[in-house]
């Protein structure tokens, strides 16, 4: 009888000890944190349409948010749990890095440009969108390229990669263009609407988003060549290659299976905000290249 009990106890403990091999956070601090709390903290933007914004039902939604949900599914499989609570944390351009660094959010699902300077601070998952700086102006303003703007005023959001690119282009071309910085896109748009500026420079996808939301979309145009190259990607914490690999594997899987194209179509062709941006050939190739085999 006693022997029997020991045997049972041995089996029970064997099972309980062996369980973590199925549901393993491994050496990943992020996965460990999620396993301990049962909560995934997703950082989201509030007005990055249609990537990450507050939707009609007051919940964050968008292209990047959908992609993050796929990663949450992969985390569930990895940890062997049936459900994880999702906690949405709003972030801004200024708070996203500190919040990733101190572990308040496990991933950032917004519209963040991946560049090498920023990679000193965070890790990026594969590129999910490719955009670049263009300029929006009123129809009939005669503005096509930055070079057409001699003697005029251009606005852009302070501290963005666009600001850098436009200032560099103005300096390179020796152009006489007055520069006005604004705090965010909505203010930049207001400045364009009230003629404070002649053109507003930003990522082209965001400009299309602003136009689609304005009360008279046919009044505005997006023109010019790309003045910068801005690949967007989701952000995760540095020094956590296990979690980063999980994210990469998830994204590669989506790109391989073609599910990525469906999610893209859902938000961009034409998408709930009528932005209507068919997938560019560059992005199509980027998805193919990043669809690594298992």
């Amino acid at each position, binding site marked *: 009888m006693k022997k029997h009990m020991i045997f049972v106890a041995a089996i029970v403990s064997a099972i309980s000890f062996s369980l973590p091999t199925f549901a393993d956070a491994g050496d990943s*601090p992020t996965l460990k944190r999620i396993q301990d709390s049962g909560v995934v903290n997703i950082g989201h933007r509030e007005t990055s349409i249609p990537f990450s914004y507050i939707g009609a039902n007051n919940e964050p939604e968008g292209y990047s948010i959908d992609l993050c949900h796929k990663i949450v599914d992969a985390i569930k499989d990895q940890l062997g749990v049936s459900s994880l609570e999702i906690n949405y944390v709003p972030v801004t*351009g*200024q708070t996203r*890095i*500190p919040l990733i*660094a*101190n*572990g308040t959010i496990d991933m950032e699902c917004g519209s963040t440009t991946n560049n090498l*300077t*920023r990679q*000193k*601070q*965070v890790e990026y998952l594969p590129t999910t969108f490719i955009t670049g700086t263009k300029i929006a102006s009123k129809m009939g303003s005669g503005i096509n390229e930055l070079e057409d703007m001699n003697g005029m*005023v251009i*606005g852009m959001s*302070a*501290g*963005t990669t666009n600001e*850098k690119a436009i200032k560099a282009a103005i300096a390179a071309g020796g152009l006489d263009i007055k520069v*006005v*910085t*604004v*705090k965010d896109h909505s*203010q930049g748009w*207001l400045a364009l609407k*009230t*003629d*404070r500026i002649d053109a507003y420079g930003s990522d082209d996808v965001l400009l299309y988003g602003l136009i689609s939301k304005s009360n008279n979309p046919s009044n505005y145009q997006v023109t010019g060549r790309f003045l910068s190259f801005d690949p967007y990607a989701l952000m995760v*914490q*540095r*020094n*956590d290659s296990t979690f980063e690999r999980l994210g990469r594997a998830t994204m590669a899987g989506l790109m391989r299976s073609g599910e990525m194209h469906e999610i893209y179509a859902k938000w961009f062709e034409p998408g709930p905000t009528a932005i209507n941006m068919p997938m560019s050939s560059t992005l199509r190739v980027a998805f193919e290249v990043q669809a690594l085999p298992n």
Partner: protein
Amino acid sequence: MNYNWDWGILFRDPYLGWMIGALGWTILISILAWIIAFSLGSILGIFRTSSKKSLRLIATCYVEFFRNIPLLVQIFLWYFVFPELLTDEWSRWVKRDMPYPALTTAIISIGLYTASRVCEQVRSGIKAVGEDQRQAAQAIGMTEVQVYRYVLLPNAYRIILPPLTSEFLTIFKNSSLALTIGVIELTAMTRQIEEYTFQGFEAFTAATIIYSLVTFTVMALMQQVDKRTMLPGSFSKGAS
């Protein structure tokens, strides 16, 4: 915390120059706005205690209007709404041809807002000097202007030196609201460095230290002013 500290960023080109330039804008906004606030506030404070009912009414309306609307809203109204109320020609001038449109708007709106607060301080200072002093001055045949010039104001300013000091420190910190209309002052520049380098902790620490240093300097200066202007046997106990 998984963060790559790099304090050297603050001393590297071009970031060091950016911070110094931005501090310059912050100081410029604060001082020019303070000149507006102090002169207008003093006049309004005198109006508010004057014997003429119409002057009291003007000052009261001003204070109620400017003190009760949040400063951020006022800056937005001056920057975005006010030019639309003007004629096309003037509207264009304000929006385009005026020197530094955003900076000028910020200085004026912060100055006008703080004037309402200075006005209340001046009023309380004058009240603190006391009605009997006013009556005594009038009894020896002083005109109302002379009463203010030689009796009420010299004492009132000495009494309100400490609260005026903190009002000036507030204007210095309020100057950061100018970033909301695109003026790249110290806080805005800190954010910009954060966006460019992702070294936000270092940049914001630097901004904190710079703001503190400036406010400590102002406090030390005002303490000296307080000491030098103190009258024997008066209420003055030193600025803090």
